[in-house]
Structures are given as structure tokens and as C-alpha cells.
């Protein structure tokens, strides 16, 4: 057995600062992490436990594990977590949000079902290493838009190309539900209501047209329509619809659509999801909540409202994940979960909401837990990775590959330390 020498992060960075972060090669030798406190997520926390990783997957969890030729990491006193999955991000779609040439997140039009986030993903974005540095191994990259904005993709955060990065997952379309802000003046309010009704009927029409187009295409295969064809999976249940909506009224409206076409849907937003718990559960709709570290939506809301939404959803029995929308900001996902934990959710549920449940909602069933057969996305840390006070991440593995944790930030730091 080879002994893996753990190099502290700072030192590793200083050695490596003169060259780029190179994607790790596929796992070639077995990896044995011993004596860790293993946060399996699927099966509780196991003290002094070893995890064996082979060919990118978790082979075994337990004590006295052995594997010929394995790299061994002594993780005594350390914590092992599954890698986090960051939902609802624009990582790799934008480099500098105020520099327009670097922004590929949004396009014009109400039906952009055929747009693919994967088409613009830049694996060399300097933002990507800053996420994995904090234990995030995968990100859902999501197009923004007016209505039907396009298709997201699930990518791993250490790759040469988007094709290396993509994780096989069901097609996922993103629909931004209209949420009118009602003006104070009665006549303007009436107008806003009227406009909203129109927007809703436009959605109805869009789905009805797409549905009938797809039925017609059975008999007339030569018919083509990129946008409707991109929606085909919605109607046979093979694709998921992520509906971005926060207010209870919007969620109720969205559920009407979901139930009409028996869509496999997810709500993204969900600030008031707990008020619609029964409807969500009946329709089998989960929620991605990206606003823990946001202000309350209304000035009169309880001051902790945004922090406490996940706890409310948990109490109401809603299936949910916690996200942190954006690009560079998404690296703070674990701390958003941590703060939700402090506001009634609890640590275990918070961790699950950014690992196993997040993966599940993204449509992947072998990720987000330390479980035999699951992908070996692992985070080794000195402490609690949800808490910046104690969580010191030392190593991250994606599909069993040991990832370089350097960042552009660390490189500049090392450079200017030399000044």
C-alpha cells in the first residue's frame, strides 16, 4: 500500500502557483479513506469508519477494509462528506457579470425550450475552482429568461470540456413563472391583474400547442419545430420542468399546469411553498429553495423568515433542496445550509438538502450520499463543512479523482506573499 501524504492546502498552493489547475485523471488505483467520521447522509453518521473507492464509485463502507494497491488516507479525527450539488447556478455561463461579452445566461423570447446551458459552459472559468474548493463537486447550470428559458445541465466541476463535465440526467426545462408585483393604485392593480391573466393564458396556449404538435408529429413525422420538440419529454414524463416561482399564488397557478399535463415538476424559489404544502405533495413536486441568505420578501415578514423557510418546508413534509443562485456567490452554498440549520432545520437535514436531495431533484440517483455503488464524490474536512468557523476542507474527490483545490485567488495570494 502506498501512503498518501497529505499536503496542507497552503503549501500545495504555493508549490503549484506557477501553473494552472489541471483536471484530475480518472481514478486508476483504489482509494481507501480510513478512520473518518463518515457523514453518509443516507445512513447517518458513522464514527471511525473507512470508505473504499474503486473506479470512481464507492465500493465499501465499514471497518477493516482492504484493497490491494490502494492509496490510503488516514482520516483520523476528520470528517468525510458527500460532495455538494449546487442547484440553480450560472457557473461557467458567465465570467464577469458586468462585462457583457462574458455573459451567456439569458436570451430573448418567451419560448426558448431549445436553448441549452451546456452549449455555453466554460470549464476553464476561474469561478469553478472556487466552488469545488468549498466542497461543491457538481453544479446545475441554468439559463435565465422571460418564460420558458431553456434547458439546464448538471456538470461536474473538474473537466477539460463540457462533454467531460456533463452528468447523465433527465432533460430539465426551466420556466420562469410570471409573478406580478401589484401596484397600490386600484386601476393599475386591475391592469396588472389583467396582464397577469393574459400571461397565464399564454402559458396555457404554449403548452396546449406543444402538446398537440407532438401528438401530430406521431402521424406527420416530417413536421419540425425546434422549440416544441424540445418540450416533448415534458408530456411523456421523461423531462422535468423546473418552475421558478416564490409566492404561494404563483405556485398554485403552476400546480394547475403541472396537474393538467401530469408533469414531472420542481419549484425553484418556493419562499411561500409551505403554504401550498398539500398541493405540492399531491403533485409530487419538490422545491429548490435558493434564498436562505436573502432578505425577507416583504418588509413586514419576520426578520428570520428567509432563513427559516427550509425548516417550515421540512415541517410541512415537502421534499426540498437548498441552493444558492448565481455564479461566484454559489460557493457560499454550504453556509446558506448552515444558517438554515441554525433556524430550525438542523444540521443533518441541512446537509441532506445540499447533497442527496439536491442530486435527487437534479434527477440523479447515485450521487449525494456515501453509499455503496454511489459516485465517489467526497469531501474530506477537519470539521463541519457547513460552518466556516470549523470546516477546513482538505481534499475533494469527484468520481474518485483527487481534485486540485487551487484557485486563482490562492495563486494571487501566494504571488503577493512573495512581494
Amino acid at each position: 500500500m502506498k501512503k498518501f501524504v497529505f499536503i496542507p492546502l497552503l503549501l500545495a498552493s504555493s508549490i503549484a502557483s506557477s501553473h494552472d489547475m489541471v483536471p484530475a485523471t480518472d481514478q486508476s488505483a483504489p482509494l481507501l479513506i480510513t478512520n473518518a467520521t463518515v457523514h453518509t447522509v443516507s445512513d447517518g453518521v458513522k464514527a471511525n469508519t473507512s470508505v473504499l473507492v474503486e473506479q470512481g464509485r464507492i465500493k465499501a463502507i465499514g471497518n477493516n477494509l482492504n484493497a490491494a494497491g490502494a492509496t490510503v488516507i488516514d482520516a483520523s479525527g476528520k470528517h468525510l462528506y458527500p460532495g455538494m450539488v449546487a442547484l440553480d447556478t450560472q457557473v461557467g455561463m458567465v465570467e464577469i457579470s458586468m462585462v457583457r461579452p462574458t455573459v451567456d445566461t439569458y436570451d430573448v423570447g418567451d419560448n426558448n425550450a431549445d436553448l441549452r446551458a451546456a452549449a455555453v459552459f466554460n470549464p476553464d472559468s476561474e469561478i469553478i475552482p472556487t466552488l469545488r474548493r468549498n466542497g461543491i463537486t457538481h453544479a446545475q447550470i441554468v439559463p435565465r429568461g422571460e418564460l420558458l428559458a431553456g434547458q439546464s445541465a448538471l456538470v461536474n466541476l473538474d473537466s477539460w470540456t463540457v462533454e467531460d463535465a456533463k452528468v447523465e440526467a433527465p432533460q430539465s426545462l426551466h420556466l420562469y413563472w410570471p409573478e406580478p408585483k401589484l401596484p397600490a393604485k386600484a386601476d393599475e392593480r386591475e391592469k396588472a391583474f389583467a396582464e397577469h391573466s393574459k400571461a397565464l393564458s399564454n402559458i396555457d396556449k404554449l403548452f396546449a400547442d406543444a402538446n398537440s404538435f407532438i401528438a401530430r408529429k406521431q402521424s406527420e413525422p416530417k413536421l419540425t419545430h425546434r422549440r416544441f420538440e424540445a418540450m416533448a419529454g415534458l408530456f411523456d414524463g421523461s423531462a422535468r420542468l423546473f418552475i421558478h416561482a416564490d409566492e404561494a399564488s404563483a405556485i398554485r397557478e403552476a400546480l394547475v399546469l403541472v396537474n393538467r399535463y401530469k408533469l414531472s415538476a420542481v419549484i425553484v424559489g418556493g419562499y411561500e411553498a409551505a403554504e401550498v404544502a398539500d398541493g405540492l405533495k399531491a403533485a409530487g413536486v419538490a422545491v429548490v429553495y435558493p434564498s436562505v441568505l436573502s432578505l425577507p420578501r416583504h418588509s413586514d415578514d419576520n426578520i428570520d423568515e428567509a432563513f427559516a423557510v427550509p425548516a417550515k418546508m421540512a415541517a410541512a413534509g415537502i421534499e426540498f433542496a437548498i441552493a444558492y443562485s448565481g455564479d461566484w456567490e454559489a460557493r457560499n452554498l454550504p453556509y446558506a445550509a448552515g444558517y438554515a440549520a441554525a433556524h430550525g432545520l438542523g444540521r443533518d437535514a441541512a446537509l441532506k438538502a445540499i447533497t442527496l436531495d439536491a442530486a435527487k431533484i437534479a434527477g440523479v440517483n447515485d450521487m449525494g450520499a456515501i453509499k455503496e455503488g454511489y459516485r465517489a464524490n467526497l469531501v474530506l474536512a477537519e470539521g463541519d463543512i457547513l460552518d466556516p468557523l470549523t470546516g477546513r476542507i482538505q481534499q475533494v474527490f469527484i468520481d474518485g479523482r483527487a481534485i486540485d483545490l487551487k484557485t486563482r485567488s490562492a495563486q494571487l495570494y501566494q504571488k503577493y506573499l512573495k512581494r
Partner: protein
Amino acid sequence: MTGLFFFSKTFLQFPCPNPPLIRLTSFDYPPIKTVQTMAINRNSLIFLLLGSACCSLSLEAKTLLTAEPERLIALQGARLHLAPGQTLEQGTLVIQGNRIKAVLDGIQTPAGANVIDMKGLDIYPGFIDPFTEYGIGFEYPKQEKDAPVYEIGRIGGNAANGAIHAEKQWAHFFAPNKESAEAWVNNGFTSVHSAKFDGIFRGTGVHVSLADKIANDVIYSERGNSFLSFDKGSSIQDYPNSLMGAIALIRQTLMDASWYQQNKRRLASDNQPGTLEFNAALDAIGEPNQTFYIFDTPDLNNQLRASRLMKEFTLSGALLGNGQEYARLNEIKVSGASVILPLNFPAAPDVSSPETEQQLKLAELRHWEYAPKNLSMLSDAGVSFALTLHGIDDKKDFWPRLKKALDAGLEEQAALAALTTDAAKIAGIDKFAGKLSPGFIADLAVYSGNPFKDGKLVSVFLMGEETALKPREQLALAGRYELGYQDKRHAVKLDVNHSPDGSFELAFEEPANTNTNASVDTNAAADSKPDSKSESAPSPIKLAGRPHELTGRAALPGIDGKARIILDLRAKKGTATLADGSVIALSLTHVTEAKAAATAKADAAKTDASGDEKAKAKADANKALIGKLTSPNVAFGLSSAPAQDKVHIQGATLWTSEADGILENTDLIISKGRILKIGQNLMTPPGFTKIDARGKHLTAGIVDEHSHIALNGGTNEDTDAVTSEVRIGDVLNPDDIALYRSLAGGVTTAQLLHGSANPIGGQSQLIKLRWGETAEGLKYEGAPGSIKFALGENVKQSNWGDDYTTRFPQSRMGVEAAIADAFDAARQHQADIAAFEKLSSSEQKARVSPRPNLRLDALSEVLASKRDVHIHSYVQSEILMFLRLAEAYGFKVKAFTHVLEGYKVAKELAAHGAGASTFSDWWAYKFEVYDAIVENACLMQQQGVLTSLNSDSFEMQRRLNQEAAKSMMYCNMSAEDAWKMITINPAIQLGIEKDTGSLKEGKVADIVLWDAHPMSVYARTEMVWVDGKRHFDRELDRQMQAEQAAERRALINKILTLDEEGRSGEAPKAAQSEPEWHCDTHFEVFKTGISTQQSTQHSHGAH
């Protein structure tokens, strides 16, 4: 009214040689309106030819050269309301010409007077509206603007700023407008104070009668009061585009005006041409404190700002109110200014759907309920106020609203004072208007009954001439009658009511015995209806017709069929033509007059004890309000101000932010707002409360170097490149919930900075998060002055769009030059002042003194190291540039804020002694932050730079403790050092370290109790003290959550019990909602929009 004067006016206006006045008895002349209509009809041809111009031109060829004698009128027998609290039960008011000649007791008939019988009526002084645009048809020319306008055209010596119209005298633009006058006249108003409501200095108003005469005759005071506002109105000039900019402009202009006056007096301009500029606006302002200002403000915060500004310049004046004065009653009272109140009580908030209900704020619900009570609360507090029709869409709502206020407790006499004497005082005409007093103008409002109850306006006298609104004769004819016939063997009672449209309504009393039933049909109805079946209960019927000839058909008791009846109310007789064609005589007896009947009814109600109780119960219900009044009066406002705590906190882990470091199991005693003692196992002083803090952590309150919370009207004056005259301290918003949220996050002190839109921004304001305090009460007393400078992309307008490419500077090179140029100008200004002061007084008299310049004064303070610079910066080149620039101009930079590339020049920062206040991990949102690193704070701190973390964010300010922890995570900063970055270090950067920022005996008790390690993501505050007062308590917060939910439900339920009438009120104005302020928020406070993108999920936006 005597006819002669009336004739002469008619001659002037209408080409009608024989005006068709029917009779000139004092009792029976028709209203003016009728006369004119008839005149026009008679001369319809001419009228058509000349169109509407007819009314304003004199077409009369005949010129009378003899003057008309003044008319002498005696209004006899009315109850005279001489002034608030002074009533003459029955008196005679003598009017000569347009003035009151005498007020006589009892019914008197002065010799030669034309007597008008006013018995049973109430005469009040005509009401006065001090805030109108009546008769001002003028509009400033509309100008299109497709790019920023930094300077306006200069015509006729106008002011340099397009919002200053001080030279306008509105008397010169005034023309009476009969049609628009009706809105006031119909509400009993007789004169108004007018100006054009556009701009900041709006010019001098004019006080005019509402009489329909030529302008020359109706102007009471051609130099009325001056009008001021914060709103630049139609000015196309960019400056000012923020509220603080408008306030700065007012300040500078008032100082300029004083300067102009002083120099004008000194210099004889005719022999020293060119020495002093001609400035019509400044000239018109004169010495500011010689003028009475009427300050137009849109809301309560601005009203209080206006009162503070007036105090600063010792201006006298009145404030336009907004109806929310009750929410900060004490501040209004202390301001001493009188208030002009619009009766803009809001309609009940829309609770018709969950969506609308959800968007309602508790403050809106409360305001709906409190608004009618505002007047009585102001009155009880001794605040003098006038009333105005301004702010009411439908002017007919004025009296119903006023009655709501009376129902809510306003005293009648206070209401009367508001309409008359107090309004006259504000309008500056109290020497001759507002009372019934000899020598006063004969402006009267004549009521039948008490206007504050159910009285009706009968007529108004405008400058001695009556405009009748309800013919008094017809009023007199109304009442209860008895109809007798056939030698009074039969008698039927009927009520006669006068309708506003001029007709009468007759209602026969329903008789107890159907045999004596009577019913009357109108002529039309009688023709189509069979005459039988007349036994059904009679319903009131309407008879169009003149009082002496009311006709209809009625089935009279004892007579078969329906007789055709003709009644003459004046002659009190009539005839009935029976079915057989025979005619019988009818006699009428006027049993009671309408008013007397009403009074009798009221008296009956009064003596009826149960009725009295009912009325009282109704009034009480009106007065009992469900909503709470808190400070501030929004959700989570405090019911009572927190008192200074006397507490002994025991057994905590103390984070001292001092050399003592972290002390385990330690006590701290708070007394009189300060930290009395720190130590282990301290004795609890008598009377002190113990708090068991074992397992908990106690820290100093967090200090945030960079924040934009609690502001109104923009965080940027982003027009000119240098705006050092604007002051954040002018625009604090103590109602901002952000104060409470951040306080709950452990923040006790924050520096509110101007944004970063220009190289030299505005003056900062340090505040303490004293939730519940007034705007002034938030200010940190005794802190050094400070100012925001900025560098980089924002100030060179990199991300402002294509319209913004003309303002210097557009490059970082230009930024350096612009700042240096401003400093040079400030130096020159100081030199000019010094040189002038050295001159002998005779030499000074011969020249113009240096003009005051608040913009340069602030920079002079910087150069004199009396004002600290906090400079927004990102990249190393600009940081170094400014360090060297400061060194060249001889001052030290107090702090670079953001300074994300500070790590690249840490040595230089340390050598200069500049502080650095940065973010823990923000980057990549704009090009100049692409080299930002999470290790920045560590590297600077290692190099000896005094380093702090700031929020610049409403959201993140609530979690600065977690941000500090990131420096521990990313670059191994020690916990102690990390904690100092949000407590003592920023306190030092702000010059307040002697008082706050650490736990030390004798320091101010700004303290936070945490339930866990304060930098853990799991930590939450339990209590937060500011100045030793517990402004936040998690337990109290929980209570408030529950109470507010209940209060909200109760208020909504109250709305649901109301009918449409009860819910009615002023429709909400589309108030511009303010965004969360960021460094680069571009906000046009005076127009519609916010041009910055608002981020939806997180509030870091851009910086």
C-alpha cells in the same frame, strides 16, 4: 345686495342694456349664475360670434364715469360665529362695500342698509385655503432631454439651477377662473393662497379672493408667502437627482441669497457695473429669514426634514402635511411649525384577494385607521394647522372627510380655527381675514345648520358680494305643512323638502286611518295610472315647479277619485279640481320650518337617554382604534422606548476585542449606558437584573464601515463629478426595517455612505442602530466628520450606458485630475476668504465678498484634516494614486473601502497609515474585482494594515459575524483578529474607538449576547444593547411576531365589516418604492424610475 354695483359689473361683462334682473328685493334676487345665463341667452348672437372670449372682454360701449356708491348691507338675525370660541347667538352683520362695517348684537336695522333676513342661519368667516394653484395657468416650457443636462440656459438673470424659480411672483401670472373657483366656493372657502407648484424655490405666492372679478380686484396680497419644496419638478437639469442633493441646493441657495443681499447693499451697482452678478432669483429671496415659507413635502420624513432645515436657517413658515403627523407627533410639535393639512384619508386597503392582502403593510392598515384621528391628535398636541383641498381628488369629499375627523375627536372650534384664523395666519392675511370683525374683509360662509354636523352651505359672500348656492327663500318654504279643505273638516299633513335641483318633494304623512288616506301622483304618472287603488301607502313624490305653483294629483280623504291639486307655498293656499270638474279651495298651514324641525328632532334625541348612549357608543367605537401606534410606526416598531438597562450578565465568554482577548466565564455589568465592570464572580449591585449567560458569548456590538441602509431619496447624487456638499445625514429614514434586521444581526454602529457614482461624493453619516428613535436620534454624536470619495469603474461611468460619456472624468487618469482640481479650488476658496478677511472694513465695502461654497468647504475640511476620507477603490493603481495624491495635499486617508486589491499594495497602505475595509469573499461581478482574493484581509492584516470587513449590503449586514469567520477559514486568521475586523478595527477607522468597538470598563455599552461562538454559522443573537438600552431582544421579537399577526387580522376584519361608504377614501398615490441602496444605485428621486438593475435573489448587486 343693492342693485347698482351689481348692475355695473353686469354692464362691464355683458352687452345687455337692460339686465334682466327681475326684482331687487333683498330677499329674492337670483344667484349671479342665473343672471349671466339669462344675459347670454338674450344676446346669444353676440355670444356665438365672440365665443368664450365674451366673458373676459368688455364689450360695453357705454362708459359710466361716475363712481358707484359703496353698498351697505345688513345681514340680520343670524347666529354670528365671530371667531373660534366667539359666537353671537343673534346679531346683525353690517357690510359696507367689501368690508365688514359693524357687528351688532340682536336684530338691528342700520339706517340706509339693505336688510337681508338671515334668521335661523349661521354665518362664519369665509374659509381660507393657504395651499392652492388656483388661477395660475402658467406652465414652464416643456423641454425634451435625451442626454444628461449639466447646465441650463441662462435668461434674465435666473438662477444657475433649473429648479430655482424664486424670482417668480405668481401675482403676475394670476387670472381668476370662475369654474375652478367653484371647488372651493362650494366648500365654503372664500379666498386662497396660490402659486405654481413646480420646482424647489417656487417663487412668491399670491393671496386672492375667489370672487369672479378681474384679477386686479381680487388680489389681497400680491406678495404672499414663498413656496419651497424638495422636488425639482420640471427642471431638466440633472442636478439635483437625489433628495440630499435638493436639500444641499436649498442650503447653498439660502446662503447665496444672504451673500447677495449683503453685497448688494454694500455696492451701488450702477457705478460699479460687473462687480456683482445680477441674479434675479437670489435678489428675490432676499434675506431668507425675512420671508414666510410654505414648504411642500410629500411625506412625514420629508416634513420633518423641512422643519429641521427651516430651523437651521431660522426660517419661519408652515409645512404642508401628509396626514401621518400622528406617527411622530412629538417631533412635529417640537418643530413649532404650523401645518397645512390635506384631508387625504386613504380608502380602506384592498383586502379583496389574498394577493392584495398579502402585499399590504401593517403600516398601511394602521394608517387607514388612524388618518381621521390625525387632526384631533395634532389639535390636542397644540399644533396649529390649516386645512386645504390639496390632496383630495374629488373636492366634494372635503366636508365628509372633515366630519370623519370630527367623529374621531376633533373639536368643532379647532376645525373652525383651522379653516379661518389659523389659515389666515399661515396665509399672512390674519390682519383682515378669518374673523367676523369690523374692518375685516366681508368674506362669509352662510350655513343653514351647523356645518360641522349636518348643516348645509347656503351661500358665500366674496368681498361683500353674495354667491347664493341654495335660494334662501326655497329653504324657508321647506318644512311641515297641514293641508285643510272643505272648511277644515279635513286635514292632511305633509312634508315639503327642497331638492338641490330646484324642485320640491312632497311627502304626505301616512295616516293611521286608511279612510283618511291621501296620495299624490305627479301629472305624468296620473295620466297613465288608473285613479282607483289609491289606498296603498303614499310614497314621497316629486313635483317640478315653482314654489307658487306645485301641481299634482292626489286622492284626498273624503273626496272620490284623484283631484288635480295646485299648491302655492308662498300664498299658503291652493285649489283642488275634483273628478266632477268642481273646484274647492285648499288652505295650507306652515307647521314647522325645516330647520326648526330638524332642531326639534335633535333635541328630542338629546333628551332621549338611550339615544344619547347610542350616539356615544358610536363615537367611542370610532375613537377606539385597533391598530397600535409604535415607534417607528411600522411592523416591529417598539411600543415603548427601551430604558437604560441595569443588568449583570453572568458567566459568559467575553470577546473583549482588547489586549485581554477572550475571557472565559466572565461577568459584565451594564449601568447608565456604559460598561460598569468586567470580572469574574462579580457581586450583583442592588436593583440589577441578572442574566445567566453561561455557555453564551458576549461581544462588543458590530461596527459596519460601509452601509446604505435607512436612507430616503437616493444614496447617490450622481449628477456632478464633485458633490461634496450633499449630506447623508439629511436623509436618514428611521422607519427602515433594515435597521431592525441588522440590529438583530448584532450591528450597533454603521457608517452610512454616499454611493460611488462620482469621484467626490457626499458627506457620510455615522449612526447607531437605535431602532425606535427619530432620524436625529440615530446620529452618532461626536464622531469625526467623514466623506465618501470613489475611484474606478463607477466614477468613470463605465457601466452607466451609452448616454453617459460626456462627464469628466471618463478614465482613471481623469479621476486623479478631477480630484486634484477640486482640492485646488478648495484651496483657492480658502485663500480668497483669508485675503478678504485681512482687508480693512472700508476696503471690504468696496468689493464683493467671497461667495459661500458648501461644496468647497467640505473639501477644505478634508485638506485641514478635519474631515476623514473613506474612499471606494478596487485596483492597485488607483489605490496608489490616491495615497500619493493625499500625501501631496497633506492629509491622511482614513480608510480605503472595498480595496479588493489592497493585498497588492499592503505595504504602501501600512506605510501611509491608511485603514482598509474590505469584503471577505466578493469578486468577479465586474472587471475591476477580477483580481479580488479571499485572502485579502489576511494579507493586509499581516502587513500591518488596520483591516476591517464591511457589508455594503442590506442582506449581508445581518451576518457580518459569518463574514469574519471566512478569514479564519480561507487564510487562518486567528479568531480574535477576525472578530476585531468587525468591532474595534472599524471603530478605529471611524474615530470612535474610545467609546465603542470593544468590551472595556467605562466604554459605552454596545453589546451583543450570542447563543454560540459568535463566528459560527449556527450563532444567533439573543439580546443587543445600544448605549446600554436593549434595542433588540429575541424573546420580544417572538412576541411581536404573534401580536402583529393578530393586529393585522383584526384590522382586516374591521375593513371587512364596512360597507362601501365606510371603506371610501383617497385612492393611494403611486408612491415610488425605494430600492435597497447600493454603491451604484442610480435613482431619480423626482421622476419615475430606478435605472439600476435590481438583483433578484441576493442583495450584493454591484458595488
